[in-house]
């Protein structure tokens, strides 16, 4: 078959058919992958929750609460064990990163200490800001935020006078990261209805969960 000549009807027809075909392929592909994509996003969320929360036996996603603080949306996932609150995970975000927004989920126990965190979305510089997922959990370094509470230490990069060593050469990413955790902590404190986590810990050991004492 010889090549089609570049006449107007030929060009319109050829481009039209190619775009319609590719539209069809994309449409089919979209509807085929829609379900698995949603499922994998849900699975990632569930996995992240299991990782950042203390052991729990309820379904935090079913009792998820949305709150808005200063125009920012936060999601709170309360965790319970034997009907007692063991803490909550807070999903927060920041638009102040080096590139794009940073979304992370951070789990707190009843004392307000960070159990674990997980960066769900970031587009920071690879090799620099992108190391936040591992940098702030290094167990051998003093910069680890695991087990610490933003109520007791200042969650600001050491460069800005805080207590946490930021990522080398990625101050903006570090600031944004620590800021999300601080905000998440405030949201969690507000949510648990207590300003002093040491006393809330004693209370919760008697059976009353911070959530019920509003």
């Amino acid at each position, binding site marked *: 078959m010889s090549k089609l000549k570049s006449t107007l009807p030929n060009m319109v027809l050829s*481009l039209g058919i190619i775009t319609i075909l590719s539209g069809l392929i994309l449409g089919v592909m979209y509807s085929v*992958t829609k379900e698995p994509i949603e499922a994998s996003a849900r699975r990632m969320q569930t996995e992240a929750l299991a990782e950042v929360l203390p052991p729990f036996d309820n379904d935090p996603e079913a009792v998820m609460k949305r709150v808005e603080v200063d125009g920012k949306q936060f999601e709170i996932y309360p965790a319970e064990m034997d009907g007692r609150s063991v803490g909550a995970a807070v999903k927060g975000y920041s638009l102040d990163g080096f590139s794009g927004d940073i979304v992370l989920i951070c789990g707190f126990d009843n004392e307000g200490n960070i159990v674990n965190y997980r960066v769900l979305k970031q587009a920071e510089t*690879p090799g620099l800001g992108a190391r936040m997922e591992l940098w702030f959990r290094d167990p051998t370094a003093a910069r680890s935020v695991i087990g610490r509470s933003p109520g007791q230490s200042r969650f600001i990069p050491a460069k800005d006078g805080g207590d946490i060593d930021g990522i080398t050469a990625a101050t903006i990413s570090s600031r944004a990261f620590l800021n999300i955790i601080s905000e998440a902590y405030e949201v969690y404190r507000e949510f648990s209805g207590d300003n002093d986590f040491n006393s809330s810990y004693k209370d919760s050991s008697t059976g009353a969960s911070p959530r019920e004492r509003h």
Partner: protein
Amino acid sequence: MTSIPHIRTRRPALRHVSDINSHPLKYYRHKIKVKYLKLLYNGIIPANPVFVLLLGMCATLGTTSSAMNGLMMGVATAAVLVCSNAAVSMLKNLIPDKVRIPAYIVIIATFVTVLQLAITAWMPALNASLGIFIPLIVVNCILLGRAEAFAGKNGVIASIVDGLGCGIGFIFALTLLGAVREFLGTGHIFGIEVFGEDYGMLIFVLAPGAFIALGYLIAIVSRLRGLRAQGQ
């Protein structure tokens, strides 16, 4: 008994190139094999998309901050390149010359989007490390370059082989560049520590280091190619 030595003397003789000419089928097969091997090899070293043709520099410089990132970007690009080359060569007679560029771009963008959807749906682990690079493939000159220079003029199988060759060349170049930058910048290669991170030169992880490392790699590759050309 007399026929046995006769066969024995004839069979090894067939392996000589001069005798291939007298066997049309063997000659044909041999020629095809050589042609495709040449095509494959051509994309890897003599016409390497990154080091020699200097195509797709945006993706090359932007994504090679570590060896793993480079490898991932290379694999994704190679996959799309093989598919788009095949599709373009299949449709080449149906695409009038004056609208060939928009047609090629639509074909390439379709494959990239299909790949992105498929990876997000079925390979979430891969998506976490590769996801942000995939949309970049659409604007990669290598794809359009190969569609225009090769697939639009050649048969389907030759185009697939050409896509494979260029794809392997691209993977090789990006992985090498990523490894060099990761090693000089952080002291790691593929995440494995070679020397302490404190001795790393941070600039190599950043954009300026990409240009410096790529410049030196291109110089080294050109020198090696020059030596080879002299030797021949």
